[in-house]
């Protein structure tokens, strides 16, 4: 099933009461009202609290602190990949080799230098996603919530990264077509795998794909998230397998889920898919990832190491039920600023307006 169907069709099916028994979702909080609380059907609810506890809130409605709707099949962390071979060929030092806290500007400058030296078409690219943009924005000081807990983008940190990001599209630092010429999500996997891209801001879920697509054709590497006045953070995220409340077989759903969420099964799933597990037991024991590719193991190691650098704002934003309203508006309005339909300030005002309007309708 295509990802777009999960984003667009599943919510309608669920609203119509015609959803499946179980679903793998990424809009974790946004669909929480449709989830099945499996607590009474589970043989050992404590196992779920112990191992999935920190992530259960991502799938709960505000005010709910006890339901067990499902488990995270993978924890993802956003972060950049670089093509180290290109840096070596260009004779330019990799900034993160020399400093633990490289800024976005330093990465932009280094990537431009590599692209210029080797005539590579794209110095940098970022997935076309407000979620991906949120990490750099928080690093620049964006708060994303006001004192009342209402989502806001009207601060200097968000504006700072928005202006920088739009500017990079105008001066050719960022892939010039990916954001302006797409609808919804778009990635630069192809460009990165074809060594046409120096620096690619994406996330840990790409490790498996790059292992297959690139292998060891060149040295690709994950580097720590760039820094700013607000920290050096990416965004947490992931996909969850959840039971759906409208199922006619809640007990059977819970049984299947118990099997899939067991440490052995989940460990094997993580090992084979190269996904980072969101399971306390597996985090403690470690996962022996099923790959001989050292590049992949190193990348996963960097991503796991990034968990500790994630800012609280990033966790709060990920846990916010209507975060996609903020992400989607950021993505679409910033794109308008890139092509001159709006100024950066107008775009930010529109993002806020879109979010406020949507939340007012939501009630």
């Amino acid at each position: 099933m295509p990802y777009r169907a999960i984003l667009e069709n599943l919510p309608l099916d669920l609203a119509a009461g015609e959803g499946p028994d179980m679903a793998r979702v990424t809009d974790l909080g946004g669909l929480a009202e449709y989830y099945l609380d499996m607590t009474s059907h589970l043989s050992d609810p404590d196992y779920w609290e112990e191992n999935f506890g920190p992530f259960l809130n991502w799938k709960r409605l505000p005010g709910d602190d006890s339901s067990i709707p499902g488990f995270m099949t993978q924890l993802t962390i956003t972060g950049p990949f670089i093509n180290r071979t290109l840096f070596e060929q260009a004779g330019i030092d990799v900034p993160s080799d020399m400093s633990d806290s490289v800024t976005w500007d330093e990465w932009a400058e280094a990537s431009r230098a590599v692209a210029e030296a080797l005539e590579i078409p794209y110095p940098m690219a970022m997935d076309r996603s407000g979620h991906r943009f949120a990490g750099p924005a928080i690093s620049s000081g964006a708060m994303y919530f006001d004192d009342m807990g209402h989502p806001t983008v009207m601060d200097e940190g968000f504006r700072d990264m928005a202006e920088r990001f739009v500017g990079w599209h105008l001066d050719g630092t960022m892939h010039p077509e990916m954001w302006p010429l797409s609808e919804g999500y778009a990635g630069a996997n192809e460009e990165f795998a074809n060594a046409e891209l120096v620096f690619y801001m994406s996330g840990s879920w790409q490790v498996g794909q790059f292992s297959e697509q690139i292998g060891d054709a060149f040295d690709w590497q994950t580097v720590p998230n760039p820094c700013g006045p607000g920290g050096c953070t990416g965004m947490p995220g992931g996909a969850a397998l959840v039971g759906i409340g409208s199922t006619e077989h809640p007990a059977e759903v819970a049984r299947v889920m118990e099997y899939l969420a067991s440490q052995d099964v989940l460990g094997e799933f993580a090992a084979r898919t190269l996904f980072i597990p969101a399971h306390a037991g597996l985090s403690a024991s470690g996962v022996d990832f099923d790959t001989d590719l050292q590049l992949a193991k190193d990348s996963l190691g960097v991503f796991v190491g990034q968990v500790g650098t994630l800012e609280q704002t990033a966790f709060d934003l990920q846990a916010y039920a209507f975060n996609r309203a903020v992400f989607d508006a950021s993505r679409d309005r910033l794109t308008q600023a890139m092509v001159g339909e709006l100024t950066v300030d107008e775009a930010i005002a529109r993002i806020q307006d879109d979010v406020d309007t949507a939340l007012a309708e939501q009630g």
Partner: protein
Amino acid sequence: MTASELPAIKNRSSVRLLNQLDPITRPVLLLLVTAVDRILTPIQRRVGIDKMGYFFVLPNLLIFGIFVLFPMLLNFYYAMTGGTKLFPEDRPFVGLDNFATLFDCENFSQPNSCQEDLFWRGIFNTIQFVVFQVSGIVLFSLITALVLNRNIIARGFFRSVFFYPVLLSPVVVALIWKWILQHEGVLNAILELFGGESMRWLLDTNWAMFWVVFVSVWALMGFYTLILLAGLQSIPPELYEASSIDGANTWQDFRFVTMPLLMPTMFVVLVLSLIRAVQMFDQIFVLTGGGPGTRTQLMVQYIYTTGFSNQIQLFGLSAAASMVLGVSLLILTLLQLRLGNQSSLA
């Protein structure tokens, strides 16, 4: 049993026609006629022969009612409701608020001054697209039909060539042209081969609209060419012979014989292409995603995004926008039909 023995078949010519059928088909058909007659006769006795017409169109009316009229009425109701719930009974009635939101503008020529700026961008883009696309389709279809109507070499081949893109799915058409127009695409490769500079065709706001119109005309003109070709072939050749005797040249033939007689077909082409242009979505969605920015985002994409693509789905606003689109289309079609009637009378 012969046809004349059946009470249902009284018409002489029908009897003659049935008696000419082969010995297998005739009894089957007679059986069928008898069965239908047994059902219809009591109904006709009850409702009277004048009202039997309603009975015959009833199945079609039912299908139209269930699949067209009911959804339209439902859409109208949704446009009067707010919130994000799916079922009508869960949605609060807000009257004309959604329409007020759509039309809340300081200056209608400046989308940025409107509350729903994307709706107005969609309207302006749609108007631009429709004007150029429909003009392009009518003009190029007419030229192509005129050429293909002449005795040119390999006429059958060229007729197939022009019709071929119509057989392709809009998504396939968009992907082919995306491959041609992308920065590392075929068009730039050809340009560079001849010493030209490559361009980002779809990233430039003006070129993007041009290509969207061009691709659409390329993909659809074969269909309209076929309609016009049929219209051209229905013009009696005697009229051209007469005009030739009167000393008319080729232009006068076209101006005073071809165009007046082709006008009803032209109106069909105009109405069909206009409706299709206003509804355009899939091809542009794949080719540019509505971009760069929102430069090629038409009204239908606004309706889709607002109602289905966003996390918080504003069905009411989306339904209101689709009502505006529907009414605009209705007005345009009625206007065209009126003009068409006036032209026919003239």
